[in-house]
């Protein structure tokens, strides 16, 4: 409130009305966006939850206590961690290695490669899960965790290479030249000089891939069959009872537990993410 009055006293009256109007509209929009989430929070605290939104009569953490068991929560979350952590590590390693020659040498090969990469970022890969499934059946890779990890890594790799190259382009080459003079090979220079300098950028790429993989439902839904390997995105279906009885409260509590890690990660990199959004708009190869 004090900020608003201060702004109003400094700005012209017309500008103040515009600001007040903007504030008003934005608050209405924010409420519309929040409203669907109200159910999630309220139901997770309500032992008698249904899909109606209601203030819990006896609010408690009973739902959380009920889902916090190895089978229901810890194993699926661990699988999610394996899947998204593995995909993110594989993606970042491959992307850093690939971005280095693309960023540091001018080669005839660069431009067509970057265009191919850009094309790859555009393909609606999740839309072709049916052929991916049949290919995996043929190669005997269905229900294989490593294969699913590598598939997820490959689908996020084009975007990751694109972002990593942009980050690497902004690391000055003079520092590496000093390393070369001192006798370091290109790979040593990359590991000792370039990577440490672009750590924040790599963090953004890592978390970007991690969040995408963590939230992905369709890929593990199609590729991983045995319950012991399924990540949280798929195991969430265990809250749908066999005869259509849905444990809404537990479903909501599990959803909250499953969502918290990515929300925290997002908060961690939201500034860096902003930078990557400008980069994704600047197509200068």
């Amino acid at each position, binding site marked *: 409130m004090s900020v608003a009055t201060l702004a109003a006293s400094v700005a012209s009256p017309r500008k103040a009305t515009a*600001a007040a109007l903007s504030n008003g509209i934005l608050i209405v*929009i924010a409420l519309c966006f929040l409203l669907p989430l109200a159910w999630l929070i309220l139901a997770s605290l309500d032992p008698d939850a249904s899909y109606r939104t209601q203030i819990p009569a006896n609010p408690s953490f009973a739902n959380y206590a009920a889902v916090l068991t190895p089978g229901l929560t810890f194993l699926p979350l661990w699988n999610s961690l394996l899947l998204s952590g593995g995909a993110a590590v594989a993606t970042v390693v491959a992307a850093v290695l690939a971005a280095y020659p693309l960023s540091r040498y001018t080669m005839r090969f660069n431009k067509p490669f970057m265009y191919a990469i850009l094309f790859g970022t555009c393909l609606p890969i999740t*839309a072709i899960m049916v052929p991916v499934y049949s290919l995996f059946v043929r190669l005997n890779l269905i229900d294989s965790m490593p294969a699913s990890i590598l598939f997820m890594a490959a689908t996020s790799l084009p975007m990751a290479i694109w972002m990593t190259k942009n980050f690497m382009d902004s690391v000055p*080459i003079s520092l590496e030249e000093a390393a070369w003079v001192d006798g370091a090979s290109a790979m040593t220079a990359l590991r000792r000089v370039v990577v440490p300098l672009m750590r924040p950028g790599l963090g953004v790429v890592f978390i970007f891939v991690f969040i995408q993989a963590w939230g992905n439902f369709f890929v593990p839904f199609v590729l991983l069959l045995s319950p012991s390997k399924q990540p*949280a995105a798929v195991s969430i279906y265990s809250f749908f009872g066999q005869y259509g009885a849905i444990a809404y409260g537990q479903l909501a509590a599990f959803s909250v537990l499953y969502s918290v890690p990515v929300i925290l990660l997002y908060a961690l990199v939201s500034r860096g993410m902003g930078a990557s959004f400008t980069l994704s708009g600047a197509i200068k190869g």
Partner: protein
Amino acid sequence: MKAEQIAPTRGANPGEPEPVGSGSPGRPESTEGGSRRRGPLGTRARTAARLLPLVPAVLLLLVFLAGPVAWSFYGSFTNAALTGKEARNPQWVGLENYVTLFQDPVFPLALWLTVVFVVASAIIGQNFLGLGIALLMNRANRVVGSLVGLTVVAAWVLPEIVAAFVAYAYFSKDGTLNQVLSAFGMTGPNWLFSLPMLAIILANVWRGTAFSMMVYRAALNDVPIEITEAAMIDGAGGSKRLVLITIPMIKSSITTNLMLITLQTLSVFTLIWVMTAGGPGNQSTTLPVMAFQEAFRFSDIGYGTAIATVMLLIGAAFSVVYIRALRPGKG
């Protein structure tokens, strides 16, 4: 941009030490390596050594990205099935799947619903709402702006399955939306059954607007304030400034954003699958849902693959348009 600035200086200075190939960590005991020779063979060896770090990425892309894409084309010409004889030994059936597809009454409907879904939820909904929020944020109070940003992003950061359940609960018969409407004395319809398309479109706007908002926030931050101020001094009003100055200045971001959200929306599956599963009937069956149903519910993988291939071609066409629009020098 930076690479191009760096590259000429590197080229113009042949005396600088060349980084020796990635495969040789120590100093070269170069008995066989021609990396220091200047002949065509040496150049080729040097290029090969420089390309070596690309190998893991290229392998990964070939096996797990190009592979499925190529398989999608091949598989669409077979009668592969989920179970039975055709699962192990699919036969080549030529264009049969495509002939069936173009005669299938569901296909034009699914294509139309996909177009409606993409245009209404992405191009109109997310794009305009995202731009609107980004513009309003520039004028509004800083605290309000960042709070709104948080709430909009929250829907986008949530795992897709959670977002889908939340949207399902919100639009169900006695769900939040109808509770709010009844508080205002209105009786809402049973959204998921009588207006399934509207429900999934609104849900996708809710879920995806954050992306456009962030792209436009970043783009608006790059518009130099001097230009807007100059226009203001020349007497251009708010809407005039928007149309004549701001929009043209963020044109390339608008193109990028439109194409990216189009392609993202084209492959939306989970949201629709959880909310309506394509129903009732086929009233909300978009192409990804149709491909999934044909493949896994009716166990006709070949046919599902043909639908996926059509989607891939639509996506590829959009990508080409997008990449051409953003060619260096234009944006």
